């Protein structure tokens, strides 16, 4: 399945999907050394975002969050790409300075919870090899 959104920062990526319907605050919510989600109230608590296609509605919290994304990149713990419903400046600026492909204006309900995705942020496209069994109505 192919979905089209708005490419915010350029680049291409291919990797495993990690999806949440909750917003993420990078400052205080993600450990830049391990890439683990550390926000005790987050449904992804304990999961690592390293090398994932990270799908979430948008960012929240302090502007210092941009620097946390940058630290993830420097530590080789960054996600391969980010997909948002509506991106906001903290995540966008973090993605720019860290050269992480970012696409927004995506209905993330259309993206499966598991499996792989191919991202082309230059064109704003996402391709998923959705399993027929997971999505019988297709």
């Amino acid at each position: 399945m192919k979905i089209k959104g708005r490419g915010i920062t350029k680049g291409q990526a291919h990797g495993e999907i990690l999806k949440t319907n909750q917003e993420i605050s990078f400052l205080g919510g993600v450990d830049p050394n391990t890439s683990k989600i550390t926000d005790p109230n987050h449904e992804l608590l304990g999961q690592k975002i390293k090398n994932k296609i990270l799908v979430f509605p948008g960012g929240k919290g302090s502007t210092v969050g941009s620097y946390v994304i940058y630290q993830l990149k420097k530590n080789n713990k960054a996600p391969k790409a980010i997909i948002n419903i509506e991106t906001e400046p903290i995540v966008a600026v973090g993605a720019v300075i860290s050269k992480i492909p970012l696409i927004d204006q995506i209905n993330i309900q259309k993206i499966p919870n598991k499996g792989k995705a191919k991202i082309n942020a230059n064109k704003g496209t996402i391709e998923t090899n959705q399993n027929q069994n997971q999505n019988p109505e297709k």
Partner: protein
Amino acid sequence: MQLTKSEEKTLDGEKGEVCQKAMEILATLGDIYNADKLIEIQSVQVAGVSYKTIGDAGIEFLNDMKGEKVRVPTQLNPAGMDLEHWEKQGVPKKFAKKQKQILEIFKEMNINIKCTCTPYLTGLPHGYGQHLAWSESSAVSYVNSVIGARTNREGGPSALAAALIGKTPNYGYHLKENRKPDITIKVEKELQNSDYGALGRIIGREVGNQVPYYILKSKPNKDELKGLGAAMAATGAVALYHIENQTPENSQFKKPKNTINVTKKQIENEYQGSKENIDLVALGCPHLSPNQLKTIEKLLKNRQTKKETWIFLPREIKNKMQNTVQNITESGAKIITDTCMVVSPLEEIGFKKIMVDSGKAATYIPSMCNAEVTYSNLKECIEVACNEN
């Protein structure tokens, strides 16, 4: 967003990697917010200066942005310590080393390392209708509302990018249509000094990032407006407000029908905390103006502080008001510049209960300094500072 040919070239890397990255940040924000173009700015104020808030990631980012100079007058937000007297302040050596590293990088970029949250008191160019890219949330609120200049709430990296390019994307509060008030606030009580911080805390929580239009029974002075805006930007994300018959753009828009009434009781309820066991009285959030410093001088005259009392202000004002500063320090209170009680490492220094007269400080201290807070007015703060118990 439409870029000029020369801006395109910068984005393609013709002016080097640093300018390319700066242009990428501006172009990305422009695209997200549907800006039509980049506009020239008069000055920039960069946040993300304290090592406490940006950490090692921030240092790495700033190191990667080295090699270029800023194109417009640029000042900084408060650092994590008094740059001269950090040892007396009790700041750990390791922290100080990192903090100095950060300041050195900014200096190399030709940024004026005046570290203050009140850059409108320290010569950073601004004026009615001028476009700026300022970061510090209380300064953004002040310069938009009280001066009538135009700036969005910039994050650290985007403000730095604007300084290096000399431009910012034309969206948000740069456009007149976004400066119209969204909601009317009627206040039943006559207010004075810290009451404005209390009001700001209430309204920030209520309105988020909307533009409030105040109808007041009293006429706030500039320092009171400073306190009001700072508190609204701490509990909410207010970047601009209008006050009927007072602020420069108040008559340009229709009064919003949607109204919030604020009672005397609500204002009183914002004051919090007991006067017992205070181990630090901290004043100057945002940094003090010359008038406020004079008021503190009067209140401390012929008195001795019995508790640690820290008074935060811009270094420039300290240098200009040496007599006042001396009178205040003779009372035992300490004058501290370049930093404030929110972004300095008070938790590492070991303070447990801090008394303030600022709605903004009262909001941030519990979460950012892991300390209890008591919020009262200036007179009470001085009384407690001079009290043995």
